[in-house]
Structure formats: C-alpha cells, structure tokens
C-alpha cells in the first residue's frame, strides 16, 4: 500500500488527514465546527511559535465525536469507549514533552468515563479535555446521555428521560480542574480563543462545547434541520463573565451559561510527580 497523497486546500488542511475527507459526520454536525475551532487554535499557536504540533497527542474515545482522532494529522489514538483520559495520561507521563488533548463525546467522557474524568481533574493531570456535548449518544443511534435534558424522549427513554442531566463544569470544579470553560458551537471564535488559551497551560483543563447533533438529537426534539437546532441552541445559551463554576447553569429549557469559570495555575501533575520523584 502506497502512502496516499494528502491534498492541502483549506487553511487548516495541514493539520488534517485530508485524504480521509469528507468525514463521516452528518451535514451540520457540531463536532466538525468544534474540531475546526481546535484546528484554528493550533494553527494560530504554531504560527505564533507557541506550540510544536508534532508534540500534540490527540486522543479520542468511541462515539461520533471519537472519530475526530482519525482525521487530525497529529499523533493520536482512538481508544476504547471512555478510556481516552487514562490513555493520554499514560502517554504524557511516559513522555512529558507531549501535549495531550482529549477530544471526545459527553457519553464517553462523563458517562462511562466519568471516573477517569474526576480523578484526572483531582490530580490536575496535564490534559486539555474538549468535551463535545451533543446531549445524546449519537453514534449508537440516539440513546439517553448523562447530559440529555430531563424529560427528553430518546430511544431508551421512550417515556421521557427520568434522569437529571450532569453538569460537567460543576463536576470538574468540585474535583479541582485548573481551567474550566463552557462554550457552544454558536460561538466558534470564542471557542477557538479559549482553546488557544488553555492548550499551552498545564494541569487539567476542561472546555465543554455545547454542540448540535441535528441527525439524532435534533430529530428527537423536532429540530431536524441543522440551522433550526442551531437557532434553538442560540436561544438558550448566555455568556456570563466571572461567575463561579458552581453557578454555571446547564438547563436546556431555561439557560445554558457559557463562559470561562475557572482559571488557575496550580502546578500540573507531571511536574508535581517528577518533583516528588526527584526528591525521593
């Protein structure tokens, strides 16, 4: 098998395995918007000489979002469902010059993978987690996610979701993350800026991205066209400056607060560990 040539057209193409495009995501899927913002952040950082993209380790779990790892032209992995964080942690600790990014879905990261999420945050593990929250288990066809609004009819909750949705921002804060923000695909530029800020930091950084899944979640709630769901999302998100992560409401019916909720600079786990070992 010969190595395929990789067409370069779009400004971020050099960071993409373009020979694999178009990607699998449905028309209007917010994962693409999020990944795009990430690419632009990396490009700007590298153009500014602030990052070396050959050190980026881009790890995903399983899900629609998880497919991202296969499209980006970084070192990376498509790990078992829910396990992206420990995989990235192992790689980072074994090779501290890596810049680990975990890019995965809500079900993957705070559903099945929730325990790794809180413990990585607790340790202040050096990883930027980009949580693409489309409020549903999309790849598997529309089952309830931990982020699904209460009452929603999904394929596994045909009588309405009885669970209250998780607020990943609060959980990360309770566990002790260094950086916590929530954005939405309605604000790709703010999202990119946030990624630009968080990527070079150390410690645990969470950026939750409220996304749109027109194909499945949109269908469930009756907003099938991408732009309809997009407008619906626009209506509910509010940007708020300087509020505590514990006040960052996540309520699809009332409001979903966007913003940067925590910016700390506690030393990252890798450094702490190496220090401890040095004095050992």
């Amino acid at each position: 098998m010969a190595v395929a040539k990789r067409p370069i057209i779009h400004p971020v193409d050099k960071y993409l395995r373009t020979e694999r495009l178009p990607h699998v995501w449905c028309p209007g899927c917010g994962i693409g918007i999020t990944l795009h913002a990430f690419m632009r952040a990396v490009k700007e950082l590298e153009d500014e000489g602030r990052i070396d993209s050959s050190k980026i380790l881009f790890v995903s779990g399983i899900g629609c979002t998880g497919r991202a790892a296969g499209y980006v032209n970084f070192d990376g992995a498509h790990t078992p469902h829910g396990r992206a964080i420990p995989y990235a942690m192992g790689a980072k600790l074994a090779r501290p010059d890596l810049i680990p990014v975990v890019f995965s879905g809500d079900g993957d990261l705070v559903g099945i993978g929730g325990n790794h999420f809180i413990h990585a945050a607790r340790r202040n593990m050096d990883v930027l987690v980009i949580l693409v929250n489309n409020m549903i288990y999309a790849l598997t066809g529309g089952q309830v996610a931990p982020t699904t609004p209460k009452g929603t009819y999904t394929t596994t909750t045909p009588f309405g979701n009885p669970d209250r949705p998780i607020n990943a921002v609060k959980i990360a804060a309770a566990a002790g993350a260094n950086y916590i923000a929530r954005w939405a695909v309605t604000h790709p530029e703010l999202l990119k800026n946030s990624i630009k800020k968080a990527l070079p930091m150390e410690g645990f950084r969470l950026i939750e991205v409220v996304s749109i899944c027109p194909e499945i979640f949109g269908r469930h709630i009756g907003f099938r066209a991408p732009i309809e769901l997009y407008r619906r999302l626009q209506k509910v998100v509010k940007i708020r400056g300087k509020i505590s992560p514990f006040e960052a409401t996540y309520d699809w019916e009332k409001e979903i607060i966007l913003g940067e909720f925590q910016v700390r600079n506690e030393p990252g786990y890798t450094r702490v560990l190496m220090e401890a070992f040095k004095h050992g």
Partner: protein
Amino acid sequence: MSREADIGFLNSNHAAAEGALTAGVNFYAGYPITPASDLFEYLARKMPKQGGVIIQTEDEIAAINAIIGASWAGAKAMTATSGPGFSLMAESIGFAAMVEAPIVIIDDMRTGPSTGVATATGQGDVMQARWLSHGHYGIVALAPFSAQEAYDLTIKAFNIAERLRVPVVLLMDYVLVHTREKVRLKKPPEVEVWSRKKPRVPPEEYLPFKPDEDLVPPMATYGEGYRVFVESLVHDYRGYYVTRDDVYEELVKRLSDKITVNKHIVLDHVEYYTDDAEILFVAFGSTARSVLSIVRHARARGLKYGLFRPISIWPMDTDALLKAAENARKIIVVEMNYGQLFLEVDRVIKDKPVYLAPILTLDLPTPENILEVCRKWL
C-alpha cells in the same frame, strides 16, 4: 559486581520486579490488590530513583489504558494485578492486542471466583488469560515456578512483548509471591534485552501497521514526528478504519499468526524424567513443584513417573508435549482449578487417556494432597 551483590533473596513479586527493571521497565501503572500490591510497592520504591514513572490509578481499567498509552509513547510499560483486576482489564487487553502495544501484565492468581479468598492461592485464570477479551486476537502467557524463573521470565515477557508487539501475561500465584528464594540477578550481555523495532523510513513513508516479514510492524513513538494514529477499529496499514474483508482477515490473522511464526522466541517448557515415563504428569507454577516432588520420590522407588512443565502456557509447546507423552500410558494434569490447562492437553493428546486432577485447596497442595486425588490412576 560481587557474588553477594547479584544474589537476592526475593519472593516472586520482587523477583519479577527486578526482572522488569533488568528488562528496562520505565512505566508502571497499577491499582492495589492482594497479592500483587507487593510488586507495585517494590517498584514504587525503586523506579523513581532510576528515572521511571510509577503511578497508582483510580482503577485497573485506567491502569491498563495508561500503560498502553505509555507504551505508544515509547515506554516499556507494565502493570500487575490479581483476578478481579485482571477481569476488569478484559476490554483493554484486547485493545492492546489490536493496536499491537507491547505491554506486560502480571496476574498473581489467588483463590476465585469473584472475591474468593484474597489471601489464598489458585490457578483459576489459565483460560481467562487466553480468552478474557472479546473477538479473536493473540496473546502470550508465561508461568514461572520459582522466584528465579519469575525474574527470568519477566525479562522474557518484556522481550516477547517488544519483539512481537503483543500483550504478555505472566501468570504467577499466591504461593510464589509469598515465598522467598535465592535469585541470581543478571545483566546484559548475560541476559538479552530487546526493544521494539523502530521505523526505518521517514514519517512521510511510514505505514504504522505494515508488517515486516516476521509479521511485526516497526513501531513509531509519539512525539517524534511520525504523527501516528493508533486505531481500535479494524484498520489498514495506515491505521485507518476500513471495512474491507481482505484488510480485516489479514489483520486478525496476523494478530495471532505473528506469535505462531515466531514461536521459537516464545515456546518454553521443562521436562523431568520424561524419556521413559509411563505416567506423565503435566503441571505448572508452584503446583508443579509439589508434583515434581512426587515424581522424584517415585523415581527413587523405581516408578516411571515423569513431569512435563509448560512455561509458555499460551501458546504451549504441543509438539514437545506429544513427544514427551510418547511412551506414557496415562497423562495426568494437575492444576489448582477444575480443569483448564487440562482442556488443552486433552485436545493435543489423542491416543491415550488424559486425566484431570483438580486440586482445590487454599494453600499449596502437599505431594500427599495431590497423590490422594491421583491414586486411582496410579
């Protein structure tokens, strides 16, 4: 190095830990569990001083995934656990096999099933070691029967993992890891230490899953510009997900075949008095030592007993077993479970009876315990 300095008085956990250090382990992630914690603790004191990284994770699933990630980041990586933790690693051991990450997993077998008896011994994870994950893949399992072998085989485990890019399981047991023995520690060149093949081409030409003739692909390391993508889905030479029959068939066969075609570096066993053995025992691990005692005492009384002790359990050297069994009238498999290794022996031996002697005691069985079960065939 003085004679004293390279002699240790170690249990099999410590010996395996020393073996790992000799083999160059530099990443360990683990979760405490009796009786494997001891190994973790031993390394926790030693590794940081030698520039290695060792961490306790939130569970065994995190541990196994951390070592797979570390392995791709270039580390010689391992973990150790016991039954319950080994079970939790099931999914990701298949992942390691699929993405051909060299890793070593030590399973200190204790009494099962379930929580069982944490402080008693067993050999109930033999079949599990081969088959715990879904789908078809290849894996290697080795079983020492002394601290010296725990040391030697841990080095071998790393070498196989690195050379074949497979997960290698070291099956030890509670008795071994609670028993100290004289161990001679070695250094290269007395002992061979292997590392994975690295790419021989620049990143643009590198196909991360294209095998060499030995069916093993060279392995890039994260962070060195190869921009390698590690895919848990069925993938082609680039690591890209494709759903083509030919790609799938080639990949899945190769994951097993690379062990078969390289079996000369894997297969291992020891025979005791098999040449003219009429009764051939098959046993492994600490149990084999009790069986060996039976055999030696029987020989002293002129009885033609022999012992075939597989060291590589998966794959087992079935040709050697057949040869050792040639003159035997009966084969007796002695193991501390209710019939696992037995199944493989019974499969291989076609022309004479194979009996199972299940030993279900909590401590190491005495030769008498074993004889009691076997009496009816002797």
